């Protein structure tokens, strides 16, 4: 680490105002999108908008964009661990066949969803 002192990055109120405005617009958008029948893509759109909102909060409100590399690494590791948790568990539920040779209901519901709502 260098000896000389860096000045802390200060995010301006104008930037915060731009972010909160975007967050409110995206909230309106997610409510609007829920009333449009997109079949199985409704949840995908909802989660996509939520993730964009969360990213804006993390980068600007939580100053991750201006954080040192090692802090960014911790954040990315956290997201990676969450992805592991979700992906590994859901892939197990989606593909599991029990001792009777019966698939877990989730598999049936997914195929039902794809068939009737997709």
């Amino acid at each position, binding site marked *: 680490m260098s000896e000389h002192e860096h000045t802390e990055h200060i995010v301006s109120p104008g930037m915060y105002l731009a972010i909160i405005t975007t967050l409110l617009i995206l909230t309106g958008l*997610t409510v609007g999108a829920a009333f449009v029948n997109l079949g199985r893509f409704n949840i995908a759109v909802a989660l996509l908008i939520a993730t964009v909102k969360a990213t804006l909060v993390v980068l600007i409100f939580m100053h991750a964009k201006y954080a040192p590399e090692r802090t960014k690494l911790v954040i990315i590791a956290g997201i990676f661990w969450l992805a592991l948790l979700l992906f590994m568990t859901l892939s197990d539920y989606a593909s599991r066949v029990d001792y009777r040779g019966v698939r877990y209901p989730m598999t049936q519901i997914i195929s039902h969803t794809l068939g009737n709502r997709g």
Partner: protein
Amino acid sequence: MHRTGALYGQFKTLEQQKDTATLGMWIFLVTEVMFFGGIMLAYTINRHTYFHAFAMGSNTLSLGLGGFNTVVLLASSFTMAMAVWSAQTSKKGLITLFLSLTIFLGFVFFGVKYVEYAQKFHHHLVPGKTFDIFYCVRNPAKCSDIDAADMAKEKEEIEAAVQADPDLNAHAQLYYSAYFGMTGLHALHMVIGAGLLFWLLKESVAGRFNAEWNNPVDIVGLYWHFVDIVWIYLFPLLYLIDRHK
């Protein structure tokens, strides 16, 4: 441990001190991500398995109240960010003002949440012995807070859902368990956050925060924004299932 101004003895510079505190808080927040992630995973599996019950349950929530609370919470994140900015630029009066606004918005959120929870208790929609998804449809006089048009729509939806899922009353309890569990844990985090904000408020009134020393404001800010992110996901997951019918 000696302290020179805002700098504690184990650190070389204020920047290093700030980075250390921030890094520690982020490591804690990663454990929180895993905590809420596990709950959301359980929610996802139940939602896929009992989709009709979850859609039915979601449609009984008030989109107006949920949407209003989303706006309130986002606004409180903005005021929190402004409190951090005020501390970083040594604007002592503004720190107190923005912290007070953040606490106020937090309490508006609690108030709305209370109204929502009370409604669910009146409508027999709390999992347990008295749970009855058909209660309002069968006793419309006792659910006079639902207007006639909404009641007719709800009746239609419940009848359609029972056709698709004969065990609707049991499976709908899974939805409400997820609803109360997730929003309850979120609210608990907000209560802790509000407690921390009161402490910051006391310190800010005493004039303790400035451009050199504002780590507590920054760290509590990270926590408050994290709680906001949880709600950003909870809102579409709980309030917006199958709204397009």
